[in-house]
C-alpha cells in the first residue's frame, strides 16, 4: 500500500504539473534509452503528436491529413537550407509558418464539415499535397526525396555550434519542444483555450452562447498545422533528408495511432504514444521484417481495452477513488 500511494502521488503530480515533469524527465531521457538518436526521434514525433492533439484531443476534430503539415514543414526547411539561406533558425521558422499557412488554406476548405466528412476532406487534400510533391521533381526530388540537406552549424550570439552530434542535436530539438510546450500551455489556459474545450464538448451550445465555432476550430487547426510543420522541419534536420513518404497518408495514420496509444487531451499522452510506438518499432524491427503486424495487434488491443490510451488509463486507475471521469481535466 505504501508503494501504491507513492505511485499515486507521482501520477497526480504529473497530471497537475505535466510541464515540470516533462522538463526534468526529458533532460535525462537520452541517457536511459538504447541510443540517443531514438530519443531524438521520439521527441520529434512527440512534438508532432502534441500539435495533432490540439486538433483531436482539445478541439475534437479528427484530421486524417496531418502528414501534409508535417511533410510540408520538412520540405520547407530542406528547400530553404539548400537553396535560400543556410540559417537553421530561419529554416525552422519557415517550416512553422508554412505549416500554418497550409493549414489556414486547407482548413478553410475542410472546417465547415464535421466528423467523417472532415476526416475524408483532410485526407483528400493531404493526398493532393503528396502528389504535387511527387510530381514537382525539381523542387522536392520527387520519388527520390530531398537529398543533401546541408549540416549547417548553428549560429548563436556569434558563436558557431555544431549540433550534429547525437546528444547535441537531441538538446537542440528539446529546446524547440520546450518552447512549443510553453506556447501550447499558454494557449490552452487562455480564454481561447477554454473556448476550444467548450467547442469540443458541445459545438451547438457554444454557438448558441455566441461563439463563432467555425472560426475557433479553424484557428485551432492553424496552430496545430504550424506545430506539425515545426516538427517536420526538425525531422528534416535530423535525417538530412526528406522522403516522399513523409507526406503519405501512412504518416497521418501513424500520428493518429501514436496519439490514441498515448492518450489524447493531455501533454504527456502524445509523448508516451510516440515513445511506445517508436520503441516497439525499433525492438520489433530488429527481430522481424513484419514488425507492423505486431504493432498493429498491440494497437488494436490498446484501443479495445484501454480506450483512454496508456496515459489516460494510468491516470484513471491512480485517481479511481476520486471518481474522475476520463479526459475531463485540462492537461
Amino acid at each position, binding site marked *: 500500500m505504501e508503494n501504491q500511494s507513492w505511485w499515486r502521488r507521482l501520477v497526480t503530480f504529473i497530471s497537475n504539473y505535466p510541464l515540470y515533469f516533462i522538463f526534468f524527465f526529458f533532460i535525462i531521457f537520452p541517457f536511459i534509452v538504447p541510443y540517443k538518436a531514438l530519443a531524438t526521434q521520439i521527441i520529434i514525433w512527440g512534438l508532432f503528436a502534441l500539435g495533432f492533439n490540439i486538433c483531436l484531443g482539445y478541439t475534437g476534430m479528427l484530421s486524417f491529413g496531418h502528414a501534409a503539415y508535417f511533410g510540408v514543414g520538412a520540405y520547407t526547411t530542406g528547400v530553404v537550407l539548400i537553396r535560400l539561406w543556410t540559417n537553421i533558425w530561419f529554416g525552422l521558422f519557415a517550416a512553422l509558418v508554412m505549416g500554418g499557412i497550409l493549414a489556414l488554406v486547407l482548413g478553410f476548405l475542410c472546417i465547415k464539415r464535421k466528423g467523417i466528412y472532415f476526416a475524408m476532406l483532410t485526407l483528400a487534400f493531404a493526398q493532393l499535397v503528396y502528389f504535387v510533391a511527387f510530381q514537382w521533381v525539381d523542387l522536392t526530388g520527387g520519388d527520390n526525396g530531398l537529398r543533401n540537406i546541408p549540416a549547417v552549424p548553428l549560429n548563436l550570439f556569434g558563436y558557431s555550434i555544431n549540433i550534429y552530434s547525437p546528444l547535441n542535436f537531441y538538446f537542440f530539438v528539446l529546446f524547440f519542444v520546450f518552447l512549443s510546450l510553453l506556447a501550447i500551455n499558454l494557449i490552452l489556459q487562455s480564454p481561447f483555450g477554454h473556448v476550444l474545450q*467548450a467547442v469540443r*464538448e458541445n459545438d451547438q451550445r*457554444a454557438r*448558441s452562447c*455566441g461563439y463563432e465555432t467555425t472560426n475557433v476550430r479553424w484557428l485551432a487547426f492553424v496552430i496545430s498545422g504550424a506545430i506539425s510543420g515545426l516538427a517536420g522541419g526538425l525531422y528534416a534536420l535530423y535525417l538530412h533528408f526528406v522522403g516522399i513518404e513523409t507526406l503519405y497518408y501512412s504518416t497521418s495514420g501513424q500520428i493518429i495511432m501514436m496519439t490514441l496509444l498515448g492518450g489524447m487531451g493531455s501533454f504527456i499522452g502524445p509523448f508516451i504514444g510516440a515513445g511506445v510506438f517508436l520503441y516497439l518499432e525499433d525492438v520489433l524491427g530488429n527481430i522481424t521484417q513484419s514488425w507492423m503486424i505486431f504493432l498493429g495487434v498491440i494497437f488494436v488491443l490498446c484501443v479495445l481495452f484501454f480506450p483512454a490510451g496508456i496515459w489516460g488509463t494510468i491516470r484513471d486507475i491512480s485517481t479511481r477513488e476520486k471518481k474522475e471521469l476520463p479526459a475531463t481535466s485540462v492537461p
Partner: protein
Amino acid sequence: MGEILKTVNLTKNFGGLAAVEKVSFSIQEGDLQSIIGPNGAGKSTFFKLITGEIKASEGQIIFRDQDITALPQTAISHLGIAVSYQITNIFPFLTVFENVRVAAQSRKTTFNLWSKALSHRELVNQSLSILELIGLADLKDETAANLSHGDRKRLEIGIALATKPKLLLLDEPTAGLSPPETRQTIDLIKKISEGLTIILVEHKMKVVMEVSSKVTVLYYGSLLVQGTPEEIRNNEEVKRVYLGGVC
C-alpha cells in the same frame, strides 16, 4: 417600456408541414409571457426561429426595432437573446463553474490567446454569483455530466443567464422535475424575471398560471388564442384542444 420582441406572420415549413404558421406575437420589455400548447404545436420551433438556429420560411422577427429574421445565430446571441433548452444542452465534461464561465466569456473575448482565462476576475465573479443564484455554488467543481437532472436543468438556465441576455427564452425548464425542484425553479424564474424579459414554454399549468402575465396558446403551429392566465383557463376552445383533464 416598449416592445422588445415582435414576430409578424412568422412561418416555418418543413417540407409540406407548417411547424409554425403565421404566428404574430409580441412581448413588452420586462414582461414574462408563457407559450403553451400540446406536443408538436411548434413551441420549440418558434424558439429556434427567434434564436436564429433555424431560418424562417416567411414572416419577420423584430427585436428592439431591428429586423433579426436573417441574422446568424451568433449575432442574435450577441444582441441579447439567450435560450435555455428543453433537452439539456450543457458542456458535459467541463466543471459546473466552467460551464457558466465560458458562457460569460462569450461577451468579452474569443480569440485571446495570451492571458489566463481565470485571470479575468470580473468573469469569474460574475459566474460565481450566477452559481449562487441558481443554487449550484457548492457543486461548482463537479463535472457537469455528474449532476442530477434537476441540477442540470438549473445549470442550463445559468449558462443562458451568463450571456447577460435582455430576452430569455425558457423551454420547459421544469420538465421532469420533482415537485420540490419545480418549486425551486419557479422561485428562480420569479427572481430572474426582475429586470429581464422572459418567454416561457411550459407544460405544467401551475407554473404558467403562477408566473406569467399573458399566455399564448399554439395549436398545430398556429396561434389559437392569447390572454391572461385567467382568460385562458376559462376559454372553451383551449379547454377542448389542450387543457382537457389537466385543469
